[in-house]
């Protein structure tokens, strides 16, 4: 299992409909979020090509979540409406992603969101496109990406 613990914030300073600006937080290299199997690879010790590909996956996920289209708009509206409230989405989310050799997303997995519709929307969003590059053939999968959701009106 390839683990890239990182955080990113979704931040919107104007309105929910504006193009979202997302920033990457510092990698949390010393505190892997998930149980580490024998095939876990510390990001610092992984080949640079793995790190570059993981950065690209994070960028694509950010872009897809921030896209101005109905499903992404609905998901962001849910986060804005329910974030930080009881029964709302968690402040952080670890997404596990499996990538096909052609750069498409085969599968994503994360702890279910309280709202099944939002949960389905996020699955749809994160599987919708092509990363743009093929994953390094020897790279361990899945990638684990930690998201810190912080949408503001």
């Amino acid at each position, binding site marked *: 299992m390839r683990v890239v613990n990182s955080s990113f914030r979704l931040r919107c300073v104007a309105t929910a409909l504006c193009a979202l600006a997302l920033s990457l937080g510092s990698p949390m290299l010393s505190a892997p979020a998930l149980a580490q199997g024998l095939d876990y690879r510390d990001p610092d010790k992984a080949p640079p*090509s793995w790190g570059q590909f993981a950065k690209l996956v994070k960028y694509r996920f950010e872009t897809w979540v921030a896209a101005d289209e109905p499903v992404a708009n609905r998901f962001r509206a849910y986060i804005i409406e329910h974030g930080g409230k009881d029964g709302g989405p968690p402040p952080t989310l670890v997404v596990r992603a499996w990538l096909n050799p052609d750069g498409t997303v085969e599968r994503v997995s994360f702890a279910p969101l309280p709202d099944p519709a939002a949960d389905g929307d996020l699955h749809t969003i994160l599987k919708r496109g092509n990363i743009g*590059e093929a994953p*390094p053939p020897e790279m361990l999968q899945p990638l684990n990406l930690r998201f810190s959701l912080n949408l503001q009106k």
Partner: protein
Amino acid sequence: MIFRCVALLGVLSATVPLSALAQFQPPPRPVGAPTPLVHTSEAPAIRREKSGTAFFVDGSGHMLTARHAVEDCVRVVVAKEGRAAWARVVALSPRFDIALIDIKRTWGLAAVFPRSVTVAANDMVFAAAYDTLPGMVGRGGMIANSTVAPSMGSGEAGHLAIDSTVTFGASGAPVLDGRGLVEGVVSRRTSINRVLAVGAAEAKAFLAANGVRVEEDDRPQIAGSASRANRAASISAHVTCLQN
């Protein structure tokens, strides 16, 4: 009243869509009318445009391109994957054909430079105009399309010569080596299939002089069998210079 009108035009010039900006023409001045002794910021009439390629060099939206692709422009626009943004020209190199521009956000990946330049004559490299990359990627990608050419002497100091068929729009494109590292920035053609690129060492020095910290590594940034065309697409964008 005149100042108010001028100020309004200035505001409009910052917000009108690109298509409208390109079509905007200032009203004709009556014959014999005095020329105002004020500096106006009227929306410029765009009569020409030139295109090139730029690539991201950090995570803050700084991009490197060819100087001749962005100098003497009234506006510089960067476009990638359906998005576009005005770019600010941060610095033009006085010595080499490179320039630093900024769009405040990095779309994709930032380039990685080699710590030490190691390409030699006959090494396979990749260079292409951004606009040609989608076609290459759609056809399954490309590992290399150029070779490093022998230098022709001190007149090419600071440059990397490549045998390449790159054409219009490639100015400012990164030259990627087999590791996916940027070895040069496409500058100009000197003869058929001979293209000069500003060397990575000169590009890094220029960026450092302007406060941009780039990532350096001598290890491969992509798998050996990976398409360099795809990596070029991940770090590059189209740049348009609007001129009047």
